[in-house]
């Protein structure tokens, strides 16, 4: 991490599915240790970018470099540097949570897989559920296990493809906290989302993917400047439904 080479660098990335051109020359750069949010509507191509970066899909043109390795030329080194949490929880339903973690720890060849598993179960408040089959887990627990599995071996770059889609508000907050902790520890996070508040809350930099290209990118403050300066208006602020929900179920909303 001495050199401040960007963690991810994409230039002119193109991808088509048959006649449909999904990516029409995508350029973006993600700094090491930052949280980068890629916004876009459904079908905009967010997952396609993630799958190319995770070496699961070949691009039709352009270059993509992750942690200093070209995804097309050095896929094995890229895989050593990343972990992917896809849109659908990539957990084994028939194994227990603990067995899932041990399996990944063995595949990543980390020392003491059982110790690593117990540690992560504790960190993600899954200790009690650790011995149960994942099939019995709630959506939030599954997602937490999924992210815990992605952290084994401390990969420097973590891809989270719509990490909170389908989660209830509490589970969402838990996932957000984990993402922030992770970035605090120096991991680069590349996340895709269709929730604007998620990007606003978490991301150091935000890019918007629309019709195959990045139409804007920058910090939240920079994006705000794209609009006319704020006018001061007096508005009676009603609590959002999320605030009401969280107040009633008795969880504090995190700052």
């Amino acid at each position, binding site marked *: 991490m001495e050199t401040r080479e960007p963690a991810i660098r994409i230039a002119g990335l193109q991808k088509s599915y048959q006649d449909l051109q999904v990516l029409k020359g995508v350029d973006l750069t993600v700094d090491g240790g930052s949280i980068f949010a890629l916004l876009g509507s459904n079908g905009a191509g967010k997952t396609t970018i993630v799958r190319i970066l995770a070496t699961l899909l070949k691009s039709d043109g352009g270059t993509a470099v992750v942690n200093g390795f070209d995804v097309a030329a050095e896929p094995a080194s890229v895989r050593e540097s990343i972990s992917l949490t896809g849109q659908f929880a990539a957990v084994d339903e*028939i194994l227990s949570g603990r067995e899932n973690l041990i399996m990944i720890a063995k595949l990543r060849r980390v020392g003491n897989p059982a110790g690593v598993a117990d540690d992560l179960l504790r960190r993600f408040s899954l200790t009690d559920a650790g011995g149960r089959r994942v099939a019995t887990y709630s959506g939030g627990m599954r997602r937490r296990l999924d992210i815990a*599995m992605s952290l084994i071996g401390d990969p420097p770059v973590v891809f989270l493809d719509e990490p909170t889609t389908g989660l209830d508000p509490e589970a969402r907050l838990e996932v957000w906290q984990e993402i922030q902790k992770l970035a605090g520890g120096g991991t680069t996070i590349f996340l895709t989302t269709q929730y604007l508040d998620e990007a606003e809350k978490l991301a150091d930099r935000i890019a918007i993917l629309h019709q195959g290209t990045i139409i804007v990118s920058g910090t939240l403050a920079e994006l705000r400047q794209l609009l006319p300066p704020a006018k001061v208006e007096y508005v009676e602020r009603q609590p959002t439904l999320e605030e009401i929900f969280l107040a009633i179920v008795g969880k504090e909303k995190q700052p």
Partner: protein
Amino acid sequence: MTTHVLSDTGVMLGRSVRHVTRSVDTIITVTIMPIAFLLLFRYVFGGAIQTGSDNYTNYLMPGVLLIAIASGISYTAYRLFNDLQGGIFERFNSMPISRSSVLWGHVLTSLVSNAISAAVIVLVGLAIGFRTSAGILSWLAVVGILAVFTLALTWVAIISGLSASTSDGAAAFSYPIIFLPFISSAFVPTETMPGPVRAFAENQPVTSIVNTLRALWEQQPVGHEIWIALAWCAGILVVAYVFAMAAYRRKIG
């Protein structure tokens, strides 16, 4: 990465063996139909079938085992299909592991689970009158041929699991294979069949495998049948492996 193939495959094998042992219903489903056939032919149809041998249970055993294997491998296709549907397949493929281990884990699991169901069926056979004086070498040959047959059909199952679009579709390929022993020497001598059916029965893989297993158990000379049987298995194995790998490469991009 190649140095990790064995340990990665070991982890994958451990995973899918757990899938087998934790769904006991799978083992029951796989063994119940062949056992039903065994009982049906032994106690219902068997009396009317003239095979020229005095122990019809002995005559039945090879075909019933092949039916068991043909239905057993459909679960390999099913398990692989489920991996592809969930995110776990992509997770494995985005990890620094040997990619072939993802498939080999399923293949080895198929060998283990089919060995278990074959053993159960042989035990049931022994209980209803299957007898053999075969020695250790003959038994090893029997196990070897069944293993190669399982391996060949498992790679067929892998193609199906990789390319199916529904879980029912993933398992459907096995139905014709399950049916194949009925048009062979597995239950009745082929001599009794009309011309074209007999020609098909005598020249399809099941007949040579069944005849070889029967000869090994009866302590008869296996003749050239064993080589025809092995050639069929090896041929299916090579072709299926090539197509399965092509399907896999398409899948992982």
